[in-house]
């Protein structure tokens, strides 16, 4: 890891926000420090309300922060930008654009020539397995296909870091497993640097090179679990017999449950 360069760096990040109903200040994040190295997939798990989505929104530039520092490729994050692509939880592809026009949106915004856009769109349509659906509108797609389209849209804009906010939480269990395997394949093929937020321990262990376990509110980095399984070997069929996967998953599960019980006792 040391030989690699850190693409995303977060130092001493704290965040408070006023509660929507009571107006009381909520302490969401406390002294977050993390580094994402080039080509690495890092997952973030933690109990509900641990601030993992808040962290993602700050990194996406959608939520302003005051305390601490976050930067991508040495550039301090001050707002949304194409250097950070985001895959949202659900229904964030534009319903009035076809699959290919959604996927090419980032390049269109950048003002690339049409031929260049359609060439690159086709590449990502194929990568996520949406061939034959290029001219469909989102309402004609299944939940899993919508998320594939969302992933392709983000990848096609070629961000330095891809931020994923529980992207597979809203699809059915079967589809979720397929999408996880596909993301693994995509991570292997594209060598993208990915931050993956999830509340699913299995998902976090399956996808991550490193898994960051967050504590209950205020969110702190509780522990880092390194998952040492080559991407080529990550297929769900094999995982149930994979000693490393089981060890990591159980470790993450234990850490998360400690936090859940803390949250309940409070």
């Amino acid at each position, binding site marked *: 890891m040391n030989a690699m360069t850190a693409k995303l760096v977060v130092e001493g990040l704290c965040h408070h926000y006023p509660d929507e109903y009571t107006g009381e200040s909520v302490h969401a994040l406390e002294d977050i420090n993390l580094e994402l190295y080039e080509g690495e997939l890092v997952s973030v798990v933690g109990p509900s309300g641990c601030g993992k989505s808040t962290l993602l929104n700050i990194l*996406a*530039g*959608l939520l302003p922060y005051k305390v601490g520092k976050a930067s991508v490729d040495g550039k301090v994050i001050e*707002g*949304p*930008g*194409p250097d*950070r*692509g*985001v895959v*949202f939880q659900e*229904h*964030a*592809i*534009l*319903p*009035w*654009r076809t699959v290919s026009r959604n996927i090419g*949106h*980032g390049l*269109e*915004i*950048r003002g690339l020539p049409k031929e260049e856009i359609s060439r690159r769109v086709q590449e990502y349509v194929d990568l996520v397995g949406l061939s*034959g*659906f290029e*001219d*469909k*509108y*989102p*309402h*004609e*797609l*299944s939940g899993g*296909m919508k998320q594939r389209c969302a992933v392709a*849209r983000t990848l096609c*804009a070629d961000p330095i870091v891809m931020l994923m906010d529980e992207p597979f939480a809203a699809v059915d269990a079967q589809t979720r497993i397929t999408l996880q395997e596909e993301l693994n394949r995509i991570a292997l093929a594209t060598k993208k640097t990915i931050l993956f937020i999830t509340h699913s321990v299995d998902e976090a262990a399956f996808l991550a090179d490193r898994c960051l376990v967050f504590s209950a509110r205020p969110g702190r980095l509780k522990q880092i679990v390194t998952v040492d399984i080559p991407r080529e070997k990550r297929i769900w069929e094999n995982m149930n017999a994979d000693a490393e996967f089981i060890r990591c998953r159980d470790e993450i599960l234990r850490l998360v449950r400690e936090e859940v019980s803390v949250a309940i006792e409070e």
Partner: protein
Amino acid sequence: MQSKSKGPSLAWRFQRLLQIDAMNLVILIIGVYIVWSIISALIDNPARYLPSPIAVALSSVDMLYKGLLPSYFGDTLMRLISGSIIGLAVGIPFGLVLGINRTVADMFHPIMNFFQSVSGIAIFPIVVIWWGNSDKTIFAVILYTAFFPIAFNVLSGVREIPIRYISAARTLGASRFQVIKDVLLPGAMPHIATGSRLSIGFAWRAVIAGEMLAGQQGLGWMIFTGQDADRTAEVVLGMMLIGVTWIILDHYLLRPFEADTIERWGLVQR
């Protein structure tokens, strides 16, 4: 999830609409004709209270021959078209501009809702006080009537666009202008379609009312003077023209546009 074709084309649907309509229309016209003829035959003094369909048809021939009908109809239609086009052309950007900023949108929403509910007829007296019984007065009332429903709908449409669509575009690097062009405007399209239909529908009523009150020719003028001059056939003829014109306009122009937008946006699935 199997791949299905892009869905029926607009032309195809238009054709089907015509076919089904043709059948229903024939039945409807015959039915109305029979009931109307019977009632007209049963009452005393039908020429004053309810002339028969034939009498109305004859009066239309008479008015066509004199050139009054095309002239009145043309006046009314021109007022509707110019008033609606200008109303929409001003109302859409206005609603959009108000809708862009959420704070401004929330502030203006009740005001716009207020004006959209005060009908053109209700503002007629004040406009007459300003400009008298003139073409200007009629035009002002039509413009007012067309403007608020569309502006209000566009404003609502922009406000209702999920923030995640805007966030998604911003994280793809969209500028403020690109967010408006790629998210807010297309996102408000179903509301723009609905609002346009409402605006034109209200404007149509306002044109007729305006012509009756301000007396500057047109279909409204025709039915108003028809009553004064005891020419009931002309009154009925005018009413029929008003209704039929709207049905044609709505059915073959406004509704398909609205339905197509809403369907493409995936709000309704066939």
